[in-house]
């Protein structure tokens, strides 16, 4: 029982904190590497269609995301039930697209402007009318490279929800 009586040398011994900085730094680096800055919260329904003839999109900073679809339930009262466009964090109308493209271009380095791609994240249920209006605006803004962002899956799965 003498085991438990040993520490009698007065005072509370200090807890070594020598390794704390290491841990904190490690966590910091970890989060720095892993976090993808997501500055937009999606306010529209966004169930992407399926496709299998796809290419991976690298260089995320060169993609201008354009969302479109019905406003999600929370925003129905403000934005209505018609399909809407979302740019950055806000609902937008068609004529805002050009401005958006120019702003995105402004914020990119000169030599990379040619490589910018408009990424269309459009809900499955959206009508093509809206999509082609967006495309016309993009053509007028001379943003000709576009990509329809999809989910991996066979094209036939796009039709299955119907009876």
């Amino acid at each position, binding site marked *: 029982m003498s085991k438990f009586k040993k*520490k009698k040398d*007065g005072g*509370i*011994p*200090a*807890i*070594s*904190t*020598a*390794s*704390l900085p*290491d*841990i904190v730094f*490690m*966590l910091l680096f*970890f989060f720095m590497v*892993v976090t*993808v800055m997501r500055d937009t919260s999606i306010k529209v329904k966004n169930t992407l*269609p*399926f*496709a*299998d*003839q*796809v*290419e*991976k*999109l*690298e260089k*995320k900073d060169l*993609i201008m995301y354009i969302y479109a679809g019905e406003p999600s339930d929370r925003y129905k009262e403000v934005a209505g039930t018609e399909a809407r466009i979302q740019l950055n964090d806000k609902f937008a109308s068609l004529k805002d697209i050009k401005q958006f493209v120019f702003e995105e271009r402004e914020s990119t380095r000169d030599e990379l402007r040619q490589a910018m*791609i408009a*990424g*269309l994240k*459009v*809900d*499955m*249920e*959206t*009508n*093509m*009318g809206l*999509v*082609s209006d967006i495309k016309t605006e*993009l*053509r*007028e803004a*001379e943003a*000709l*490279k*576009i*990509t*329809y*962002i*999809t989910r*991996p899956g066979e*094209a*036939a799965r*796009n*039709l299955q929800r*119907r009876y």
Partner: protein
Amino acid sequence: MARRNAPEVNAGSMADIAFLLLIFFLVTTTIETDIGINRKLPPIQDQQDPPPLKERNIFIVLINSNGDLLVEDDPMELKDLKQSAIQFLDNGGGTGDEKCDYCRGPRDTSSSDNPIKAVISLQNNRLTKYSDYIAVQNELIAAYNFLRNREANRLFGVDFTEMEKAYKNPEYQGNKDKLKERIQVIKDMYPQKLSEAEPKRT
């Protein structure tokens, strides 16, 4: 009760715990990358007469608002679209200058002359669902990829889609210029000529 001195906390295992967490997060987080169908929009030009195209070199695909397909005036199921697009592109009905020596189609005189001349025209109306449009786009691109893969395999013994993937890979070991050249050869054999009309009102 007399207050006892707190024993020293052993911090030696902290590092182990932290590493464990690190490894856990490293394994579980996936940095998601988007995938998509790349397309190029035509630039807006002054109205000018389009170059004359022979009727037989155009393959018209119509999608209506119910997602039904009308291909060359006949209704068609989505699953047959790829095959019929391949047949159209690969027909090679031309003679003389327009002869296509690598085509393996039936050389039907009522279908396309050669893949360079062949144009697929995709038309939809404003009420067509986006998902149907993507499904059709996907099938048409699948048709092009099938033919391109076939030719790439014949000439270079490798899939066209593999070549493109390798070209985009920054860690690719090998001659990039040569690869680019090869990709261009295949692209010239089967250029993607997908035209999209402005959707019709109604």
